[in-house]
């Protein structure tokens, strides 16, 4: 019998997401992804200084704390023709690179792991057997019987207080948890270790970016961190050494903890390599330049798309193929809601038609109406998934040497074909693979930076085009960035030195999007279909697939269109 269920709030994500799903005979047959918050920043940017836009848009998200700043300064640079010096490109790569690595580890251990790891089961683990398991997959030093016993005792003491705090009322003992107690205890130990690790390695942002969250050295045209081997207040050899040490620490944890654990527990969940594939179209616009004025096609990650069924055929991408729909989103387009608007023509006029709060016992989803604050971006009128999986699938199809080597290794260890990537498990594995690759790449980039400083290059900024008086009266530009959660683009139009129009098309908007006018579901919605649900009252399986995308709803609902239109109407039923 069909039954509709609601999960609201979805926890262990950024932002406010509600999932409604129809369950029939223990399997999801339909699903709706619903963003329940809007901040309206699109109305706020118009008329402000384009050089300030990075600071504002950075506040879309404090989890993806570098990504909007990056896309924003690139949009301004594209618009007014700034050339970014190599020092700034490499410092930005390091800021983006460590952001990706740290974010992926936090996602895996703190936001996703509890979907797979049963903390309560860890209490009955044998610490000696846990040590043997840990030592069989990695030579990471924190793996002794004494160590795991101490972790277990700490958790026991916590549980003994009978006040479980954030771990209360969860789905412990759910039949979908498959790990033996020892693998669970290992996961709990890593959860705690990763909490300390994430605090340390992100200090790269403090050294290069002044602080984290929300680093503050971004500049349109460069970076505000001075570099000079002979100055005390600039990035010098000592600070580069500090950064390098942190990057080595970051890489070691990924190589010796994250990846071995992922490979150790994945075999228990191989059925999830056949669940959660979703739309199976993958899109990336490439990132990580390694030379001044480099073409996008020569970046370390290259742009490309792979369409469902066409793997391993990767095609080039075009920025003009992106359009957004609001047929099922709480916005109104002046020319009718069923048309798609390219980012340059984007409109963001709220038109709330959902239930009036409080509505705890009502459904929000509606086949025929609007049901989310998230818009529906489409590429050539087709829903695409963005994110680590998209980047790894496209890179693999393109024959990217580093990506291909690690993906093949992982597939071989799991005894799985490449098609296993198109799944919930594949999405989670791809994130780990990407963290590994970037944690290695960071070390290359820091060495390139040191080399460049050694050549006497101390340029950090295109000062010639800093002052708006050097800009054309009217200009437009686009900035792309591959954020941890996927392809991000910011689109800016500048008039007389002020922002005339600004729009962001965000990774979680691609992935969390509702249906479009053709009724095509967004990637979350499509991925949930076919997911088994053992107990509709404890929808652990929904969390697994949704979390595998690493949702970031604050980002998703901050589409920008700084035209300064007045809000005309908000319908409250």
């Amino acid at each position, binding site marked *: 019998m069909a039954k509709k269920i609601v999960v609201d709030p979805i926890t262990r994500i950024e932002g*406010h997401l509600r999932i409604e799903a129809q369950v029939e005979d223990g399997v999801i047959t339909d699903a709706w992804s619903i963003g329940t918050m809007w901040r309206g920043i699109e109305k706020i940017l118009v008329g402000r200084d384009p*050089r300030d836009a990075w600071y504002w848009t950075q506040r879309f998200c404090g989890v993806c704390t570098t990504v909007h700043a990056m896309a924003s300064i690139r949009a301004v640079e594209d618009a007014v023709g700034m050339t970014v010096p190599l020092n700034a490109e490499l410092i930005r790569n390091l800021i983006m690179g460590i952001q990706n690595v740290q974010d992926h580890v936090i996602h895996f251990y703190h936001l996703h792991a509890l979907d797979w790891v049963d903390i309560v089961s860890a209490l009955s683990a044998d610490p000696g057997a846990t040590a043997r398991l840990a030592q069989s997959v990695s030579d990471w030093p924190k793996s002794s019987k004494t160590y795991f016993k101490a972790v277990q005792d700490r958790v026991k003491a916590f549980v003994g207080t009978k006040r479980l705090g954030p771990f209360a009322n969860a789905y412990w003992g759910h039949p979908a948890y498959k790990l033996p107690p020892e693998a669970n205890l290992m996961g709990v130990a890593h959860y705690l270790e990763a909490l300390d690790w994430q605090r340390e390695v992100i200090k790269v942002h403090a050294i290069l970016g002044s602080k984290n969250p929300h680093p503050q050295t971004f500049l349109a045209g460069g970076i505000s961190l001075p570099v000079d081997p002979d100055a005390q207040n600039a990035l010098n050899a000592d600070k580069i050494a500090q950064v390098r040490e942190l990057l080595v620490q970051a890489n070691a944890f990924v190589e010796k903890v994250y990846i071995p654990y992922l490979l150790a527990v994945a075999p228990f969940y191989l059925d999830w390599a056949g669940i959660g594939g979703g739309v199976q179209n993958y899109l990336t616009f490439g990132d990580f330049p390694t030379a001044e004025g480099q073409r996008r096609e020569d970046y370390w990650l290259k742009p490309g798309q792979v369409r469902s069924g066409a793997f391993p055929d990767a095609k080039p991408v075009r920025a003009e193929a992106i359009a957004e729909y609001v047929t099922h989103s709480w916005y109104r387009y002046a020319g009718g809601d069923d048309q798609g608007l390219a980012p340059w023509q984007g409109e963001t006029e709220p038109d709330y038609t959902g239930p009036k709060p409080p509505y705890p016992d009502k459904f929000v989803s509606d086949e025929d109406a609007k049901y989310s604050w998230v818009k529906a971006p489409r590429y050539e009128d087709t829903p695409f998934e963005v994110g680590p999986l998209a980047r790894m699938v496209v890179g693999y199809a393109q024959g990217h040497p580093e990506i291909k080597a690690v993906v093949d290794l992982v597939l071989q260890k799991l005894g799985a074909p490449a098609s296993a990537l198109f799944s919930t498990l594949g999405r989670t594995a791809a994130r780990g693979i990407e963290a590994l690759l970037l944690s290695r790449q960071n070390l290359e980039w820091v060495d390139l930076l040191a080399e460049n400083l050694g050549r006497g290059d101390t340029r950090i900024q295109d000062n010639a085009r800093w002052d708006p008086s050097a800009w054309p009266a009217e200009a437009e530009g686009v900035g792309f960035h591959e954020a941890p959660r996927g392809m991000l683009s910011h689109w800016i139009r500048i008039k007389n030195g002020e922002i005339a129009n600004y729009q962001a098309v965000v990774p979680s908007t691609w992935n969390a999007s509702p249906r479009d006018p053709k009724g095509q579901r967004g990637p979350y919605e499509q991925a949930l279909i076919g997911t088994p649900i053992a107990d509709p009252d404890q929808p652990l399986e929904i969390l697994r697939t949704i979390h595998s995308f690493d949702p970031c709803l604050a980002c998703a609902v901050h589409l920008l269109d700084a035209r300064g239109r007045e809000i005309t109407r908000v319908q409250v039923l």
Partner: protein
Amino acid sequence: MAHDPHNPRETALEQYLESRGVDRRSFLKFCTAVTATLALPASFARKVAAAVAADDRPSVIWLHLQECTGDTESFLRASRPTAAEVILDYLSVDYHETIMAAAGHQVEEVRRHTMEQYKGKYIAVVEGGIPTKDGGVYGCIGGHSMVDVVTEVCGNAAATICVGTCSAYGGIQAAAPNPTGAVGVGELLPSIPLVNLPGCPLNAPNLTATIVHFLTFGTLPRTDSLKRPLFAYGKRIHDNCERRAHFDAGQFVERWGDPGHRQGWCLYKMGCKGPATSHNCPQVRWNDGLGWPVGQGHGCVGCSEPGFWDTMGPLYERLPNVPGFGVETTATKVGLGIMAATAAGVAVHGVAKSIQLRAVEKKEGN
């Protein structure tokens, strides 16, 4: 301070710490650090220790509203104590959507249960602005408007701590023209016991210090008229700035990457808002003291001031129209001018409002 094994209170503390897997040395180190952040005499460390070790861990409900989770991320970077210690050892963080294992109605149950069981005793931590327009439709959690959630949770709390500029003053979404009618908690609920820890994001040591202050003394720390604790917001960035000597000497960065920039000269001409911003960044810094904006070559943007989004911008222009202010005047005159201007801004909140209104009018005029 020496350890006294015959003091029954200390022995109990020791046993408690042992049961939590915390060694005494690191615990006392933490208490001393907190005492220092709070600017208390060192003798308070013992009192702090006893308070945080009290066996009934205070319950915490941490709300996420119109926000970016940057303040939670900042909290995860805390080192004295660490986030893990706070969650497992010092507090009972009963509701916090970013880290909770459960989801959906199970977490709604937890929130309800916590509010009933610890009514009037729990601490509410709020992250994010509150959209008040149009019946609250711009922000809902579990089908309840954020206005209702905040009113209920903060209204029944022993104290509310607003982390970050959004919950303190509405934040970025409250910038003109404030499309969702976003406000801070203090504006929605003016009479509740509340402390604001603005910043974009909040700096973690200021949160841990505030919590420990509350546990130790049973009260919220003394605040200024904007409800910001004096221990963290009692002085201007400019007064504690490591580059102040260059300001006084008239040595300014003129272009990004110029010799003055590389030598750490004053960033005032590049738009630094330190002279009008009250915050302890220069002392506490960020990420265990490894950096802060001015130290790394970018000006302060004034993120701990209400309405800074509208009143402090643009980022890269010199502070405008501050009476008596200007690099050409002498250092003494400058200092007096800024102090007068800041005092006026703090005393009369309406000043900021009128500047904000002027900014709106200017834009509409365009």
